[in-house]
């Protein structure tokens, strides 16, 4: 029993850390550009297909294929912002939201046109033996996922808190106008945020596809929406919140699947969101906005 719970917790941690990586993109973009980038989930899909193209069609070695994936996703993220969102910088939030949803469908439709709706099987590029600690089995992909997400999150936290560019991001996220008065180029900072968020989505996409091993144009939609839930759960705009929200969500989902019902797992996950938001409207680590006049 204990072994089984431990294994489920570790599974949850694995799924959760992938959600967390994606949630970071939502929360950082929200913090800086004050918008929900609903096309963010589809960046994962683009990442997965890029990895497939790199390995199966271009016959690249694994590491260069992964780097290609990260670069393609970053460039795509920046382009999406420049083409679709930047012209709407001063538009009402609803217009931006609808554009983001449109962008999401656009990316899915493009993938549908290019790759058709038939799922493409994909063999994991991460091949590591399952490790046994006591009676607990941990798969290789789980170990890699946990390792990669931990390193990524530590690096991101250091970047945001210790570098000049990182403090520019924090300044823009808090007060765009005041940041401009400091000499910060807000457009550049927004581009950088989209690039980083999309690179994180690429990492998530690689880990995700190595686990699910099947490519479909809609593969980014569900992890995308769950990661969005994770970001809101943790407190949208908060970086530690996105990390916590993702992991909490993954663990709840994993435990619900194992001990309650596979079919109900998603309903339980979204139910938890509703309850948390009723009790803490700003999310677990979100701050209530103090308005000083």
């Amino acid at each position, binding site marked *: 029993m204990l072994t089984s719970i431990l294994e489920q917790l570790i599974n949850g941690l694995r799924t959760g850390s992938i959600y967390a990586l994606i949630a970071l993109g939502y929360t950082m973009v929200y913090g800086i550009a004050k918008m929900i980038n609903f096309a963010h989930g589809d960046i994962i899909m683009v990442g997965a297909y890029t990895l497939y193209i790199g390995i199966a069609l271009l016959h690249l070695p694994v590491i260069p294929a992964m780097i290609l994936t990260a670069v393609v996703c970053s460039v795509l993220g920046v382009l999406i912002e420049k083409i679709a969102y930047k012209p709407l910088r001063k538009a009402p939030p609803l217009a931006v939201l609808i554009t983001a949803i449109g962008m999401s469908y656009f990316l899915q439709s493009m993938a549908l046109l290019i790759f058709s709706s038939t799922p493409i099987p994909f063999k994991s590029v991460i091949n590591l033996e399952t490790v046994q600690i006591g009676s607990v089995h941990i798969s290789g992909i789980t170990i890699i996922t946990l390792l990669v997400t931990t390193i990524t999150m530590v690096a991101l936290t250091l970047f945001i808190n210790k570098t*000049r560019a990182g*403090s*520019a991001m*924090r*300044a823009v996220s*808090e*007060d765009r*106008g*005041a*940041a*401009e*008065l*400091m*000499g*910060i*180029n*807000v457009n550049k900072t927004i581009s950088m945020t989209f690039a980083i968020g999309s690179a994180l989505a690429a990492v998530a996409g690689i880990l995700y596809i190595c686990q699910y091993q099947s490519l479909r144009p809609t593969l980014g939609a569900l992890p995308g929406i769950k990661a969005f839930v994770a970001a809101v759960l943790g407190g949208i705009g908060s970086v530690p919140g996105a990390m916590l929200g993702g992991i909490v969500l993954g663990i709840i989902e994993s435990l619900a699947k194992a001990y309650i019902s596979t079919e109900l797992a998603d309903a339980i996950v979204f139910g938890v969101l509703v309850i948390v938001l009723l009790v803490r409207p700003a999310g677990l680590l979100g*701050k209530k906005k*103090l308005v*000083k*006049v």
Partner: protein
Amino acid sequence: MAILKVTDMAVNYGMIQAVKGISFEVEEGEIVALIGANGAGKTTTLHTVTGMIPAKSGKIEFDGADITKVPAHKIVSMGLAHVPEGRRVFAQLSVLENLKMGAYTRKDKEEIERSLANVYQRFPRLEERKAQLAGTLSGGEQQMLAMGRALMSHPKMIVMDEPSMGLSPLYVSEIFKIIQEINASGTTVLLVEQNAKKALSIANKAYVLETGKIVLSGDARELMNDDSVKKAYLSE
């Protein structure tokens, strides 16, 4: 020589013409006050000068360069800093991080350290609280931080928007004293204030704005004794 020269500047704010073709000059080393009632266009004027809002027409020259179309984030490094209305310190950043943001465009680490030492000397309170989040400071301390942050860019000129707003009388006097000190150390100041009496008492020159137009200008002391100014802005 005028360090700032604004000629026929008009600004639209949405559908409304907030500033209707104004001209004014700030000489190097001066304190110039821009006074007027709420909605007269004072803040809009400052925002346009530092590139936060585009001018609809007219010309803005700073330190010999035409800055009419220069975006806000490039103006700081030209030597023009802006202390915005309501202070707008970065509440979630520490006092020290706020000050460092002020030096964002500067590269020379040693010179930045020197500026930081100067700011701490002028505002000992900020040094005491350097690790504290800016949002936890009192209003007066936040105003000092906003000023210190502007000084960190080592500006030739600072524009200040309502620095005394919302402060206790004790702090108001202190802030005005500090403005004079900053000016005495060689920084030109353009000051927007609703506290016209205090502003005129430290300014060399002043302009009176009314519904987007300059209606009166001249020596600050003379304006203080002007009947219409007394009646409109100095009654208590």
